[in-house]
């Protein structure tokens, strides 16, 4: 028997009221941002979620993390139904699931130095001594490829890729088992994107993390995900092993997305030259 998945989502839905008018907002109707979706995520697995803007990807992320209440459906984390948890009980689970956002600029408090930013989840979830926090911050910075001395510096002193590393270090601080990555590399140049994707991959191998990886970039999802779910208008229209989905997309919308993906592969002398570069 295979072990139970880390995350099980069943018939999850979330509706939002559509309101018009500024002073006396009247409810005009409802939008189903997430509409009856089900999926599972195993330990050490990456499930990619792709879909166009507004398809419900980020809403799914917030529901899974219990940052937003569902209108219907259930969420099980490590075998426990967390759908209706609140207070202390919910906080125990919050430690085990973290999020990394798209915008490395907006997601870090500019008034806190990097050490304080990374120590925040530790203070919340892992009571300990100041010296202990400092040691752990240094360890986390090293883990994401930054120097421990950089703990005293502020977010504006870092590049986009470095800020994203800081965001990842903060997410790792409380030793989560699940990390929801909401467009973690979309704001970055391909070169820096590759650095961050490599980091996420190495961390998964070392720590056995599960990733729910949201992106609108099909090439990225193909590279990182074991399985992919395609969302459209709040629904999962197709879900499969990554290579199977890319080889034979069943849904028309998935085919449309794939057709829009630029497909240029290196060849000829470039392949030899890359080999030289890889040897350094």
């Amino acid at each position, binding site marked *: 028997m295979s072990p139970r998945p880390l995350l099980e989502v069943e018939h999850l839905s979330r509706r939002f009221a559509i309101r018009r008018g500024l002073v006396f907002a009247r409810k005009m109707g409802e939008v189903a941002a997430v509409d009856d979706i089900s999926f599972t995520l195993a330990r050490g697995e*990456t499930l990619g979620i792709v879909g*166009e*803007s507004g398809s419900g990807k980020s809403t799914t992320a917030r529901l899974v993390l219990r940052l937003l209440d569902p209108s219907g459906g259930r969420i099980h984390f490590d075998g426990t139904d967390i759908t209706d948890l609140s207070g202390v009980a919910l906080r125990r689970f919050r430690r085990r699931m973290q999020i990394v956002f798209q915008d490395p600029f907006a997601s870090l408090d500019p008034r806190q130095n990097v050490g304080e930013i990374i120590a925040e989840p530790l203070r919340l979830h892992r009571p300990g001594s100041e010296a202990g926090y400092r040691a752990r911050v240094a360890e986390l910075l090293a883990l994401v490829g930054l120097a421990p001395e950089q703990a005293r510096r502020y977010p504006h002193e870092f*590049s*986009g*890729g*470095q800020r994203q590393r800081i965001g990842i270090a903060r997410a790792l601080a409380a030793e989560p088992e699940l990390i929801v990555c909401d467009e973690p590399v979309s704001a970055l*140049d*391909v*070169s*820096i*994107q*590759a*650095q961050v*994707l*490599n980091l996420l*991959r*190495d961390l998964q191998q070392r720590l056995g993390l599960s990733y729910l990886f949201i992106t*609108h*970039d*099909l*090439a*990225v999802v*193909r*590279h*990182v995900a*074991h399985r992919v779910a395609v969302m459209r208008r709040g629904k999962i229209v197709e879900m499969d092993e*990554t*290579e199977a989905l*890319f080889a034979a997309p069943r849904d028309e919308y998935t085919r*449309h*997305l794939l*057709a*829009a*993906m*630029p*497909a*240029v*592969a*290196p*060849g*000829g*002398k*470039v392949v*030899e*030259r*890359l080999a*030289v*570069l*890889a*040897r*350094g």
Partner: protein
Amino acid sequence: MDPLLQISGLRTAFPGENGGELAVVDGVDLSLARGQTIGIVGESGSGKSMLSLSVMGLVPPPGRIAAGEIRFDGQELTRLPRPAMRALRGRRIAMIFQEPMTSLNPAHTIGAQIIEAIAAHERATAPDALRRRAIAALERVRIPDPARRIDDYPHQLSGGQRQRVMIAMALSCNPDLLIADEPTTALDVTVQAEILTLLKTLQRETGMAMMLISHDLGVVTDMADTVAVMYAGQVVERAPAATLFTMAEHPYTLGLIASAPRGGAARERLLAIEGSVPAPSAMPAGCRFHPRCALAEPACIAAAPAMRAFGPEQAARCRRAPIESIAA
């Protein structure tokens, strides 16, 4: 025939500390023929936008063009008086930017804004003729039901439609050169493909030349005839778009190619370029790419490499190229 645009030795700079100048574009040579597309790629901060603003005569002060020439259809732009440059911008060179929402005025209908663009370079046209022209402009960029959409405000349109409106405004003067700075970066993949296809179609229809700026090598090789790769204010490689993915010489270009995941070897480490683009105030000595280059050797730090030709249409700024001959 002379190229439409010929840039030589261009240096664009901002004042630095203690009286010095910091070059953000430093010795750029480029040429573009009529009806052709040149793609400019490079990481953010490499000087792509400053290059395009230099051509437009829109370098934000206190920045300025410190040296070099920009010849457009025989005219030297860097010494052109301001009113003449403004007129040229309205009629012959147009530009579209990355974020269509910030370039459109939220308080006016898109019709009013297109009419303003048309009226800016056309004297005395009757109001209903202008309105008809604006509707035709929307039709040209394939906005459905243009006679009704013309009275919409920007927030009523999707991101892709807003970019179509920007293109309609840019093309309303029938420019000879369209500069597009990251025109699809903020859009979904499917919408991005639609906008790029539209730009290609409009280019075929009008015969305009394009300077397409992007940080996405795939987009640029898809769209352009020639590609110029920029790093730290300089062009480090120039090559035909069609052969870039098979013939690229420069370690930086190769690094950009290797960074983007392209199927195959899923979940393996990507061959990333470590580090990041240097600030103009901290330009490395010698080859500006050396701190990030896997192939750097002492000679790369001692002297700056010059651009060298590799075949009739390709050139690269690397002293070790061609690198497939480097022994393991």
